[in-house]
Structures are given as structure tokens and as C-alpha cells.
């Protein structure tokens, strides 16, 4: 109990500079009320709005262009025009087509990698926190090791040895390496929750540990779990873009990081082809930034103390 409390503040710091409070008001507040507060919060509105715009672009965009992303279809190095909205690359590929297809890959990586990391992190965190003892020792050791290891370097090596790489494989590997902070944070919260009366009551009435975790402990952190997924989504997108940029992106198809990689490789910087590398990075920044802002907004929604008066 004491240990749980002691480590709680450490676990507030997670993704770069992002904090999640201990929220957890869902037991007393109804879903409708939460939605009302969520909608009233401008951070949530703006954040989700931006993400939605890019999501729509990822779905609708490919229908608006009949150029496949990697085909040589137009004049080379042409600036944005009515025909090629985002211009063309040095080879005459349609940047707009690459952009919208890359957006789709970005969302895919975020969902898969974020989902995998969330599931592993929650499982490890709940089990370690609820079981305690030896199980906790082993799982915490594992968590701490993965936490210190520079996982990006591991991803580099793994990706370099894969001769065929796809977006999904990339996402799976990112998910497998980015769960530790989630496990730590959830373990700490489970630690403090499992000593509460309602958990004791459930245990006395003969519920199995799994059922207690799912029906008694998890619902008390549902807001927290949701925000965790948002942060994981954002960080996965950034990691994937970095990997792609180094030249370890998908060997087939396209992605936003790959676009920037090609732009640098073919001296877009020196030739002034800004339309080649500005859109992909801008989209990543906008999506991830919007997610972070949504997260702050949701924190205020779930944690009334933080709401602006």
C-alpha cells in the first residue's frame, strides 16, 4: 500500500511531458454526464476535430486521386498545382497520393501498436499489482529492464535484418517494446486499489482474481486506461515515422516517414522541393499534438479538480 503510494507520483510522467492524473470518477458519474463535459471542453473538441479531419482524409483521399502513390505519373519536381494538389516528387510521383496513403498507414500503426502495447502493459500491470509477492518481483524486473533498454535501437536491429517489411509487422514490433511505462503505472494504481473495501468484499464473496480485476479494479481506472491508449497511439506514430525515416520503413507501399526519407535521400532540401517533405511531417505533428491536447482535455473531464473554473 505504502509502496504503491510512493511510486504513484513517479508514474505521472509518461510520454514526453504528458501527465495523466488519477482521475477515476467513472463510478459516480454517468456516461451521459461525461459526454456532456467532454463536449464542453474546448481541448477535447479541437483535438478530436483535428484527428477526425485527418482520418477522413485517409479514407476519402485515395478516392480523390487515381494516381497510385509510387507510380511515375506527372512532370518531375512540379510545385503544387490544380492537377497535382501537393506537387510531384523528383521522379514525378503524385505527393498528394503518397500523403493520403501514408496517412492510412500512420493510423494503422497507431491503432495496432498502441493496442498491443496497451494490452501487454495492462496485463502485466494488473497481474503484478494484484498478485504481489514473487510474481510482482519478476514482472517488475522485466518491466524495468525493458524500460531502460533503448528500445528504438532494438527496433533498428530487428528491422534491419528483416528483408521484407510491412506496416503491420512494424506496428507489432513497436507495440511489443513500448508497454513498460503502462505496466508500471497500472501496477501502482492496482496496488492502491486492491486494498480497498469493495475489492475485499468481492474476494470474500468468492470471486476469482480475473473477475475481480475485470469487474472491480479495471472499471475504476477506465478513464486512465483510455488515455493511456491515446498516448501510446501518439508515441507509436512517432516511433514508426522515425524508423521509416532512417530507411527501415515498409518495403512495399508508402508511409509519411518514408516520404521524408526519400525527400532527404534525393536532396529535396537543396533543390527547394518543400512540398515533398512539409506535408508528411506536418500531418504527424498535427495528429500527435491533437491527441496530446485531447488527452489534457479528457484529464480535465475525468478529474473535476482540474476543470477550469
Amino acid at each position: 500500500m505504502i509502496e504503491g503510494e510512493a511510486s504513484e507520483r513517479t508514474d505521472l510522467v509518461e510520454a514526453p511531458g504528458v501527465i495523466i492524473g488519477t482521475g477515476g470518477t467513472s463510478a459516480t458519474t454517468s456516461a451521459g454526464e461525461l459526454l456532456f463535459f467532454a463536449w464542453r471542453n474546448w481541448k477535447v473538441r479541437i483535438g478530436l476535430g483535428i484527428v477526425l479531419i485527418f482520418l477522413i482524409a485517409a479514407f476519402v483521399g485515395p478516392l480523390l486521386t487515381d494516381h497510385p502513390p509510387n507510380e511515375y505519373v506527372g512532370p518531375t519536381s512540379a510545385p503544387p498545382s490544380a492537377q497535382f494538389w501537393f506537387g510531384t516528387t523528383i521522379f514525378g510521383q503524385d505527393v498528394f497520393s503518397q500523403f493520403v496513403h501514408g496517412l492510412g498507414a500512420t493510423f494503422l500503426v497507431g491503432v495496432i501498436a498502441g493496442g498491443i502495447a496497451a494490452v501487454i502493459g495492462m496485463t502485466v500491470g494488473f497481474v503484478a499489482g494484484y498478485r504481489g509477492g514473487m510474481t510482482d518481483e519478476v514482472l517488475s524486473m522485466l518491466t524495468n529492464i525493458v524500460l531502460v533498454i533503448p528500445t528504438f535501437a532494438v527496433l533498428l536491429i530487428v528491422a534491419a535484418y528483416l528483408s521484407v517489411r510491412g506496416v503491420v509487422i512494424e506496428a507489432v514490433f513497436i507495440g511489443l517494446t513500448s508497454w513498460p511505462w503502462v505496466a508500471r503505472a497500472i501496477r501502482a494504481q492496482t496496488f492502491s486499489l486492491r486494498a480497498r473495501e469493495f475489492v475485499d468484499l468481492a474476494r470474500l464473496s468468492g470471486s476469482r482474481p480475473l473477475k475481480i480485476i475485470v469487474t472491480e479494479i479495471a472499471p475504476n481506472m477506465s478513464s486512465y486506461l483510455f488515455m493511456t491508449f491515446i498516448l501510446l497511439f501518439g508515441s507509436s506514430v512517432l516511433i514508426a515515422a522515425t524508423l521509416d525515416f532512417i530507411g527501415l520503413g515498409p518495403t512495399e507501399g508508402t508511409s509519411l516517414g518514408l516520404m521524408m526519407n526519400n525527400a532527404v535521400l534525393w536532396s529535396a532540401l537543396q533543390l527547394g522541393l518543400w512540398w515533398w517533405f512539409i506535408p508528411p511531417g506536418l500531418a504527424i505533428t498535427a495528429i500527435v499534438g491533437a491527441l496530446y491536447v485531447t488527452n489534457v482535455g479528457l484529464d480535465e473531464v475525468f478529474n473535476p479538480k482540474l476543470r477550469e473554473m
Partner: protein
Amino acid sequence: MRRYFGRKLSIYALTFFLAVTINWMIPRFMPGDPVQTMLARAGLRPEASEQMFAYYTEVFGLDVPIFEQYLNFWSSLFRGDMGTSIWLFPTPVTEVLLSALPYTLGLLLPAIILSWIAGNKFGAFAARKRWLDNTLLPVGYVLTATPYMWLALVLAFVLAATAGWFPISGAYGITLRPAWNWNFMLSLAHHWVLPFLTLFLVSFGAWAIGMRNLIIYELEADYTTYLETLGAPRGLVRKYAFRNAMLPQLTGLALQLGVIVAGALVTEIVFNYPGLGFLIKQAIENRDFFLLQGAFFFIVIGVLLANFLIDIVYVMVDPRTRLGMEGEAAT
């Protein structure tokens, strides 16, 4: 304190062991034959290729039982032997990496330390000040969400390619040779500014927001209310809040090291800055697996050392760990 360091060191030792094992395992258990792939890409004449194959099979140590391979891997590692670079044949990998290391460290260390200090100061200053807070928050979130390489590209495009204020590529002018004279130093500093600024800005945003959020939590704590009811001046309350918020920020620094290092790698690639990132890119393009794996070791060792340094600082600032009580970083 002994227990604290004991725990920490055992985690680092295990991590190092695991990292070495991963590094050994991946080439051997991944689908495909690394030696073949490497040679296929090199495009050599058949007879040369055969010789190279025999050579690399021996260098990889693939001709002895697998357990022996593993032990050999460790022993050559302790001798500082990481194989021979293929891209810069026949320079040993260790030598190649050591010559690149100063450039990476020269970017990373100032960027990490300065952004951490400046971000914390600014975040603490901005917290609970409506106007500053409303401007800091959006700017900070945009900065932390920016991929390093994109900020590098934007800065290079605006300040170097368009405005021409800074050089766009390299660590010093192409006409110069590394030497201890003013001319070279000036050129070195001039080339250093933009990569440094990239790393600094992205991390700065993260630390400023982190600090701002922590201060707000601290200002809601009971001790703050207590101090305020006692009539303590605002400055004093904030000072205490800042000190308390420093600890999680320090832990955060340790956790973020990997991300910042990754950021430095891609920033170097954008600016053709001859550090580890540049080498990694060359290694990937030239299928130089020895170089790549050597770079992996350098990064792992660097991050572990930095973690240990942060632990020492932690003990200095947090009396609880010093007195052997369960501190926040004790787990």
C-alpha cells in the same frame, strides 16, 4: 542507499546481458542468411564472393557449435572487438564508431542538459499564470509532437537553404581539416547550431509541459494549503513545489533518454552530421551489419551509463533514497 544502488545495478547488468544476447540472436535466428544477403548486395565477382563468404562465416563464427558461438561473441566483445566494417573496409567497427562518437555526444549532452534545465524553469514559471499558460500549452504540445527529423528539415529549409544563415550539411566546412585552430572551431560551432536547436526545441517542449503539470499538482497538495494558511509567501510555496516536482522530472529524464537518442540519430541524418546516426544510415544502406550492431552496443552502453548517472544525481537530491527509505526511484 546500498540497497538502492544494488537494485539499480542488478537491473543494468541484466539489461546489458539481455541486450548482448538479443544482438547475438537476431542475426542468427532471423529468416535468411545474413552473410549471403550482405554479399549479394555487395555485388562482387563470383570468386571474390566465395572468399568473402568463407571469411565472413569465420568472422561471424558460424562454423562452430551454437553455444560456443555465443561465448565467443562475449569474449570478443570484452576485447573491444566488434568486427570489421564492410562499408569502410578494413577499418575495425570500434574505431569507426569511436571517431563518430564525439559528434553525437557534442550534440546530445548540451541538448539534453540545457533543454531539461530551461524547460523545467520555464514550465514552473508559466504554471498558474493564465496568459503564459495559454500560450505555453499549445506551443509545448506542438513541439513535443513534432518528429525530430521534420523539425530538422523545417529548420534546415528555412534557416539554411532559404535564408542561408547556417550551413545545411556536415559538421565543418568541406575545405577544412579537423584541427585546433579558430577557423575550424568557428566552422564547427556554425554547423552545430541547427542540429542542436532541433534537439533542444523538441525536448524543451516536453520538459516545460511536464513541469507545468507537476507544479499544478503540487500546488493542490495538502502541504501547499497548509503553507498558505500559515501565511507563507507565494514564492516560498512555489519553491517547495518546484523541488518536489524535480524528482519525477528526473525520473522522466531517465525514461526519455532512448527517445532523445533516437531523435539525435535522425537529426544527424538530415544534416549529414557525421555522428552515430549518420553511420547507422550508411550501415543500413550498405548492409554493414557489424557496424549496425556495434552502434547498437554504443547506444545501449551510453543509455545505461546515463541512467546510472541520473541515479547518482537522484540520491543527491532525494534524501529518502540516501537514508535507505523507500524512495520514488527505489523500484
